[in-house]
Each structure stands twice: as C-alpha cells, then as structure tokens.
C-alpha cells in the first residue's frame, strides 16, 4: 500500500462556543482524488483551511509524508506543496491570465524588470500542459467565462507544483458545460501525480472523478469509502444521519445542543 502524502489526526477546532472540528482524521494518498462531502456545517472548509495553513488547529496533528508539520500561514503550507483554490476563484479581474497565474511571483530579469515575455511563455506552456484552452494569455480574466476562470485559478495553484491540491466547491457556480471542463481538468491531474481533495456538495461529481470519498458530519469524520465500493445512496445516508459513526465510535457522541464551550476531556 502506498504511504499517505497527508495524514490529519484528531484535528480539533473551536470558534468561540462552536466546536467546529471534533477530532477529525483524514488521509490522502498520492495521485488520488478524495471527495470531501457533508452538509453545510459539517466542517469541510474549516478542515481544509487547517490543512492549507489559513487557520491554526486547536489540537491534533498533521503528518506530511509521515513527518509532523505545523503551518502558521498559507505560505508555510505552500512551501511543503499544499495548495488551496478558494471558492471565489481569488483572481484579479483587472489582470490578464498570465499575470494571474504568476500573481506575486513575477519573473524578473536583470533584477528589476518584470520579464513579461517569459511570464507569458511559461503561462502558455502551463495551460497547454493542462489542456486549458484560451486564445491568448494576455486576455483579462474579467472577460473569461466562469469555467475558464476556475481553470485559471487551478492553473495558478498547479504552478506551485503542489503535491496536494485542495479545491473548495470548484463547480459551485458553473454551468453544466463549464463543470464538465473543470472536472476533466481535475481528473487529468492524477497523471501529474497530484493528490486532490475535492470539497463538493454534488455527489455525482465525486462519483464521476473521485477514488475515495470522506464524509463529515457536525465536525466529525463519519466514514471513508472507496467510490467503486459505495453507492450514492449510501453516502447520502451517511451525510444525513451520520450513520455508523455513533455506533463504531461511541466515545465521541455528538454533544447535545450548542451550549457554552465544553472542555474536551479526552
């Protein structure tokens, strides 16, 4: 069996009185697409923000290629090869495609001048490798469709050569055609050896391109299933009921109600 590229162990996170993550375990294998599903308050985005260094966990441990790591900022996670693409694309509409891909990392020539040509050539090569079709990398991002914009955002994340790519609802606001475009891009990433965590509320997507699917409910990891061994109905039931979690893990029953922050005694 391949060793996990990322292992999250017993991750805890409180936001004031809200116990957002209650000892979540998650692991990602190299080159797999892991669907991360759950209803709205399940903690999917919070868990991924912990992994990407955007918010610090209150407890638990992250292992990267087997070694414990601690990320104080997205830059530290990025340095290890963990990239997150946020739901709102995080692009600069006033800049062109090449500039967005190299945002803040402008190739410099002679120590002072931005090498625009080199930047454009690198952006073109990158988009070609990912088979993202744009007429010109000098088109302002504001003129692109939602699907293309998402593809550009993913291309920027990939330009950091990440080992792990986290996508937060990448198809949330896309048309069916654009959704297909983005999903096939993500499916192709396997060939580049990138492990992908796909946060999604559309189970069909996860079943279309995912290898495994992890279910969260109310800040707990309920189950992880191989996609080919599971059915959508089964996963849906896990999302809604939390299913077997309570049975297999009686020590971690959900707290009744949202009272004041209760001390975590284990």
């Amino acid at each position, binding site marked *: 069996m391949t060793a996990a590229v990322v292992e999250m162990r017993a991750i805890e996170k409180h936001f004031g009185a809200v116990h957002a993550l209650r000892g979540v375990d998650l692991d990602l294998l190299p080159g797999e697409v892991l669907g991360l599903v759950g209803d709205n308050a399940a903690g999917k985005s919070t868990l991924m923000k912990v992994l990407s260094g955007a918010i610090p966990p209150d407890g638990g441990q992250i292992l990267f290629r087997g070694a414990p790591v601690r990320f104080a900022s*997205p830059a530290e996670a990025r340095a290890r090869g963990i990239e997150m693409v946020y739901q709102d694309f995080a692009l600069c509409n006033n800049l062109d495609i090449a500039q967005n891909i190299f*945002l803040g990392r402008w190739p410099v020539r002679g120590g002072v001048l*931005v090498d625009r040509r080199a930047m454009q050539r690198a952006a073109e090569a990158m988009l070609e490798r990912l088979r993202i079709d744009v007429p010109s990398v000098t088109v302002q991002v504001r003129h692109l469709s939602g699907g293309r914009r998402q593809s550009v955002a993913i291309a920027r994340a990939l330009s950091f050569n990440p080992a792990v790519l986290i996508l937060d609802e990448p198809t949330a606001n896309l048309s069916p055609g654009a959704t297909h475009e983005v999903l096939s891009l993500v499916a192709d990433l396997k060939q580049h050896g990138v492990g992908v965590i796909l946060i999604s509320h559309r189970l069909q997507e996860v079943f279309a391109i995912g290898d495994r699917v992890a279910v969260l409910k109310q800040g707990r990891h309920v189950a992880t299933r191989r996609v080919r061994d599971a059915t959508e109905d089964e996963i849906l039931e896990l999302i809604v009921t939390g299913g077997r979690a309570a049975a297999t893990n009686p020590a971690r029953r959900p707290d009744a109600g949202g009272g004041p922050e209760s001390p975590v005694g284990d």
Partner: protein
Amino acid sequence: MTVEHAASAVAEAGVAPRRGWGGRVMGSYEAAIYAALLLVVAAVSIATPRFLSPDNLFEVARNFSFIAAAGVGEAIVIIAGGGGIDLSVGSVMGLGGVVATKLLGMNLGLLPAVGLGVAAGWACGAVNGLLVTKAKMTPLIPTLGMLSIAHGLALVITQGYPLSSLGPAGPAFIALGAGYVGPVPNPVVYMALVVGAGWAVLTHTPFGYDLYAVGGNDEASHLSGIHVTRVRLAAYMISGALAALTGILLAARLSVGDATTGQGEELNVIAAAVIGGVSLLGGQGSVLGLFAGAALIGVLLNAMVLTGVPAFWQEVVIGSTIIVAVLLDRLRIRLARD
C-alpha cells in the same frame, strides 16, 4: 450564453493582442482620452490661433507640468485600491516648498535643502499610509487631516510671510525652476522625467505589478504572498515625496516659499488622474492616461484665459470636469460588468 459572450470578448481581444507598451497604451480608455485631447486642442487652436504658438504651448506645458508630476503619485495611490486617495497633495506641495526655501535661507546647500523638503513630504505620506494600512482608516479622513496639518505646518514655518531670502544657493535654486534645457522649460523636463519614471515603474517593475494586483483584488494578492499593506504604504510615501518635490520646483519657479502655494491643487491633480482613466475603485488606469488628463486640464485652463473667460469661472469648469470624469468612470465600471 456567458460562454458565448466570453468567447466573443476573447475573440475581440485575440484580434488585437496587447503587445508591450504600445498595446497597453492604445488599449481602450487611454486612446479615447488622447483623442479627446486632440479634439480640444484642435477646437482651441481654431478659436484662438495664438494657442499653437510655441511660446504658448510651452507655457501651457509648464503650467500643467506640476499637475502631472504630482498626479503620478496620486495615480499610484488610487491604483493601489482600497478606496485609496490622497487629498493632501496640494498642501504637501506647499510644505515641501516652504521647508526647502526656509533651509536655503538658513544657508543650507541646494541638495540638502531639496532633500529635506522631499523628506518632509515623504513623512506626510508615511503618516497617511500608516493611518490607512495599520489604523485601517478610510483614506479620505487621514489625508483630509493631513491637508490641514501640512498647510498649518507650512504657515508655522513661514509665520504667514513669503520666504524670499534664499541664501547663497538661492540663484541656483531659482534657475532650477526658471531655466531651460534647449527651448524646453525645466518644469516640463522635470514632468517628462517623472512621468517617464512613473510609467516605467508601473508597467515594468514587480512593484508596479504588485500595485495593480493589490488594486484589483487585495485578498487574492494577500493569499499569493504580496504584502498588501507594504505596497499601499509605499504608494502614500511616493505620493507625499513626489508632491513635495513638485512643490519645491514650483517654489523655485516662483522664486519664493509660500505656504499657500499648491493650495487647492489636489482638485486639479485628482481630476487629472480620474479624467485620465484612473478608476477610483483601484487597479485601473495608467500614468500615460494621467498625463493626458493633466494636459487636457492645462489646455482647458489656457483656453479660458486666451478666450477671456473670467477667472472665477475656471474653478467651476474644473469642478464640473471632475464630476463628469467620475460619472464616466462609473459608466465604464457598469459597462465592464455587463
């Protein structure tokens, strides 16, 4: 639908790919503002043929050179976004001139006097920038306060009297403002240097790229590792320093340090930037557009003088021009969103 719309927009852009600075200049709004400038120049020269005489043209250029030079700093602040604007440039121009002339009068050399005058403006910009980025104040407020503070400090230094005894370096200082390079007045040369440098920095350096990125989406810039607050702080420092340097040149041109020099100039400067296509929402506009905006204001002011429009009406015209320019800006934003 949106895909088709985007495809056609992309196809249009594909017909005329933006190549280097030429493509950037002729992009869109800048081309329109240069066309408008040519039209106004044509109309004015038909109405008053005297307008096109070389002497008058250099006079016009010398008058708007101060607006354009200070405008480069203003444009940088506005492009950096976050509602960025510097209302204090006029007063800081006055303060810079007063500090430099006061020091000259205390027998300081030309370079140290000019250097310390610029440093005073830089410090004003630093205070503005820190209040905006660290204290998270709306840029209107600290820079409006600085408008008053800088003017007040200039009055404290001059005690209300013009400073006209400029010490041993005085003649060299006056020559700085009144001299020529060939047929070109020094202030015009100074403007050309500042506009050229501003253009180069904004379009070819990492700082310029950071500036547009921060102005376009500060959250995305931050996530990509750009130091948003540092970029914005630098923008205010540049604006303050450039305003002071410009004010020093203006004092040299007038051979006197006066606290009232530059008063109200912030309106012309902001108008030049906005007319030139620098969007108040940030991330949009260029130094070359600003230059055209300043030239347009200069030509309009000169035309009013040549055609005998009473001086009192000039402020009405400039104020109206600003409002029209901001309306156009809003219109452009709405069009861009559709």
